[in-house]
């Protein structure tokens, strides 16, 4: 098992695959904005969705974050950081947009 994982060809293939996926996701996002075919809200939502997919792909292929048991510590740290980020960013946006609405 570990020999299979330590095979350089296999590892290089992982990076190249991640790179190809990242190129594809990036190109689609830029193309959607460059040649708009959808309404602007739909384009915006799709660009964000593509970014999220690409972030997961990069975590998987370049940073090798998996769901395997031995990597759980890293995954937990990422999930905890994501929770903190969601609370702080979400809170900031809610409070300040609410403030702006009331000041108008």
């Amino acid at each position, binding site marked *: 098992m570990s020999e299979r994982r330590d095979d350089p060809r296999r590892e290089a293939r992982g990076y190249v695959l991640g790179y190809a996926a990242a190129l594809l996701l990036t190109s689609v*996002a830029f193309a959607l904005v460059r040649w708009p075919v959808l309404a602007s809200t739909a384009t915006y939502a799709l660009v964000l969705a593509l970014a999220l997919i690409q972030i997961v792909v990069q975590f998987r292929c370049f940073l090798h974050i*998996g769901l395997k048991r031995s990597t759980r510590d890293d995954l937990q740290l990422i999930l905890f950081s994501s929770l903190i980020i969601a609370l702080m960013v979400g809170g900031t946006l809610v409070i300040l947009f609410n403030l702006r609405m009331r000041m108008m």
Partner: protein
Amino acid sequence: MTAGETKHPGLNLGSTDAQAHEAAGSALFGFWAFLMSDAVIFALLFATYGVMLPATAGGPTPASEYKIGPTFLETLVLLTSSLTYGLASIAMKHGAAQASIQTWLGLTLALGLLFLGLELHDFAGMIAHGATPMRSGFLSAFFALVPLHGLHVLAGSLWIVVMMAQLRIIGLDARVKINLLRLGLFWHFLDIIWIAIFSTVYLPGLIP
């Protein structure tokens, strides 16, 4: 048995160097904790940018300042540098010839510097239009967020130079290997921050 385990984020040395692999576990986890706190700093600057976006004060707007072509080019350069760094770390892990590791690192460095050059050219263009950080809240938030990523890329580029020197002088010992793994995490992390930047700053600003 422990050599087969995944011990940390990023490329694991595994059975190619069991001793360094053992030491890498805590060294890289600590660095990962730093990267996550860095991510929190970036996240708050993203939130600030989101709030400041309408505060253009009658000055330049995202649509007038952002350009899709150069942004796409910068993205391609940074993505490719992530691949070349990955190939450098595979060469390092499997004890490839010094020259091949140095070549991949040099290529990554060149792409990092090209990215910085393109970005500086963009900023210079914006400043020439009068889009300076002092002009409006929107521009202050923009210049707090995007150049901070640029500074990280600059730090990463200097770090690559240091690693190329360490590799030449010290050779591939356990410490140098662990430093290269850390730099790998940093470099791939910068790529992920850039995805967030082009998807929440540049592209939404250009949607008609």
